[in-house]
């Protein structure tokens, strides 16, 4: 059973603060003092939040890949073990706890969306002294654009709602759209404004790309967003498999095994003393399709769409 512990409300960091955080991360990552400690082999210490079904599956996958990993909800117990270590925070709650704890080794965030990662790291930036990197929870915008291109088989306009906390994604999304030969239209939703009303500014778009922004997409507005887009015959591309079940047309998403496979490569490098890499989107991804919505929107789903993705070896 997944524990529904909600994050504190986002503080909407401004662009300048985000850039400061990213610059600090890049500097720290390249610093030799933050390499994995050389006094013997480093230990992988996995920080989790309260155990739930998702956490249990993630921990099971990780311990299969790293049998010697130390897993605990108690970060103090992990840090008390001493010696060189690489820390892996599983989920937003664990990341927030690790950022606020006296952790000396490199910290890797996993199963946290990029907006949540940016918000948490930006909030902890003033007192952070160790390198942090991440494998984001959602598929890369490039993967979403590939999926859209394959679904519509033509150049269509992709509408994207952004808020202040996700506005930094605009260049990345534009590059991904251009690479997939798609046009993109952005609408920035001001704080306090209704994202459903903002959809009226995206009437030219054939498809709406959802980004994991709690200000724009949450349980309260999701139904209205889906209803509104459906009335305009716009398909919605989600960022998780659950959103497809809730009524979006399709989604590029990553499974636990996809993320763990990528984490294996990253953690192997860190444990071997290599420098901390940049936060990155998942290398491996796959697609989920809502066939009912696709039929109602006259979107033909063939085998190439269903087989789309990048799968670990």
């Amino acid at each position, binding site marked *: 059973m997944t*524990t529904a512990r909600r994050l504190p409300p986002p503080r909407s960091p401004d662009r300048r603060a985000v850039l400061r955080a990213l610059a600090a991360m890049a500097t720290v990552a390249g610093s030799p003092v933050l390499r994995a400690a050389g006094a013997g082999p480093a230990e992988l210490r996995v920080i989790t939040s309260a155990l739930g079904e998702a956490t249990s599956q993630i921990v099971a996958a990780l311990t299969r890949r790293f049998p010697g990993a130390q897993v605990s909800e108690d970060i103090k117990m992990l840090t008390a073990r001493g010696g060189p270590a690489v820390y892996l925070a599983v989920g937003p709650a664990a990341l927030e706890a690790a950022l606020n704890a006296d952790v000396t080794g490199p910290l890797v965030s996993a199963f946290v969306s990029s907006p949540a990662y940016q918000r948490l790291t930006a909030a902890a930036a003033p007192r952070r002294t160790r390198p942090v990197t991440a494998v984001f*929870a959602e598929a890369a915008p490039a993967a979403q654009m590939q999926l859209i291109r394959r679904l519509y088989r033509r150049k269509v306009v992709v509408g994207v709602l952004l808020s202040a906390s996700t506005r930094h994604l605009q260049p990345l999304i534009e590059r991904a759209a251009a690479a997939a030969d798609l046009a993109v239209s952005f609408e920035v939703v001001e704080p306090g404004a209704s994202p459903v*009303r903002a959809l009226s500014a995206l009437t030219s778009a054939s498809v709406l790309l959802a980004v*994991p922004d709690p200000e724009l997409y*949450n349980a309260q507005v999701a139904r209205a967003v889906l*209803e509104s887009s459906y009335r305009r015959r716009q398909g919605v591309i989600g960022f*998780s498999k*659950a959103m497809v079940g809730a009524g979006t047309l399709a989604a590029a998403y990553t499974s636990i095994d996809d993320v763990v496979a990528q984490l294996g490569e990253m953690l192997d490098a860190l444990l071997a003393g290599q420098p901390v890499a940049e936060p990155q989107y998942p290398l491996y991804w796959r697609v989920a399709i809502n066939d009912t919505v696709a039929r109602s929107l006259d979107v033909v789903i063939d085998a190439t769409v269903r087989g789309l993705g990048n799968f670990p070896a």
Partner: protein
Amino acid sequence: MERTAERSWGSWGLRSLLLAAAALPTLLTLLAVLLLNFGSQERMRHDLEERATLVAGALAEASEYGLISGNAAALDRSVRELLAHDRAIAAIDIFDAARRPFVSLPGQPLAAGLPSVELPVRSSVPDIDFFDRATPHVSMAEDLQPTFRLGPVAGYVRVTMTTEALQRAQQRRLALELGIVAAAGLVGLLVVGLLARRMRASLLVLLDALQAMRQGRYAVSEGPAVGGELRRLQGAVLELAETLGAAAHPARDATPWQRHAEGHGGIARRLMGRLDAALVAVRLSAMQAARQADATGPAADPQAAAQTAARILALANQAQAAGEALVEPLRPRIVDALGLEAALAELLQACVRAQPSCAFSLHQEPGFACADPAQSVEIHRVVQEALALVVAHAQASQASVRLQALPPSREVRVVVTDNGIGEASSGAVARLARLREALTARGARVDVQQASAGGTTIVVTLPPETPLVINPPG
């Protein structure tokens, strides 16, 4: 009170009673319709509240998107259509979550106290992780079957109903119902009035007839044609009039019924006249026969004497036939009317009344049955004659009548027994002899046994079908 009412109803005429009987259901129906209508106000309000709940529920479901998206225009259009289609809705107000008016139609102040229902707009929201939770952001295998939960209040819908339209409709319906009941009542009263008029006319004719008969006028008219019990009453009155008329004027009619009503005196007179005429003819013929018998020589004519004898015999037969025909009305009608058993029981009761000191009893042997009317009359006559002997001469304290069927021959045996002194008097002997002679002439066998200690038993065996000569009069 009830007696007063009964007396007052009892004094009503036939027409008034029938009209009252026809008008009462109509009045009760009108009263019931009015009472039902009186109790319908609360029911109407209850119905309106239920309807308001239904409309508000449907509208709350449909308003979610409009409230969240801020699309008031679409909601306004939907609400206007709803108001146009349902005249019972006075107003619809939709508020946002902060209770600020979002859509309000018709937007005019309403009277207080109207049925009103307000419901929150709460949708079911997908219970999935939009990567906004503290738990790991991950897609699970089972995520394609999301659950739903009740979301926060997005607004409120208030539906206010008006009773005006329904009241108007109800008043129209009530007026129609009352009109139909009143019309049906009027038609019923008209029909009953016509029937009462006709019935009253028939009864008046019968009353007049009875009054006329009371005054000795028996020529009554039949009156208007009627059916059922009135027809039977009319027939009875007419028959009574005919009977009484025939009794008052016996010589005028000659029907069997009237002959029966003439009484035994008339029959005896007619019988005497017939027999007297027959005896005169027989005497003259006998004198001629005597002269012919005294003649000798050439004057002797044996053939003429034989003819005269044959004529005398024919005259005797004619006299006998005429006598039987005249006596036929004396046949006991009670047997025809009541049946043999009841007639014999009546006969025994008559004997008891005539001689209370004697116990009379009637026994029918198993298997005894008499379906032949003529034979029943004959049995009744035999018993009547035998019991007449007992009552007149026996001085008995017990007398019994026993009826027995003789299956092989289908004969009937009548046994009359008493414990009296016996029919030793000359009158009794003569009467017994006449009975024996009459019954023997009709084919019956008679056996009379007298015990030495007292008591007499008369055994009469009747043939299977006793001929009963009934000749038409004249």
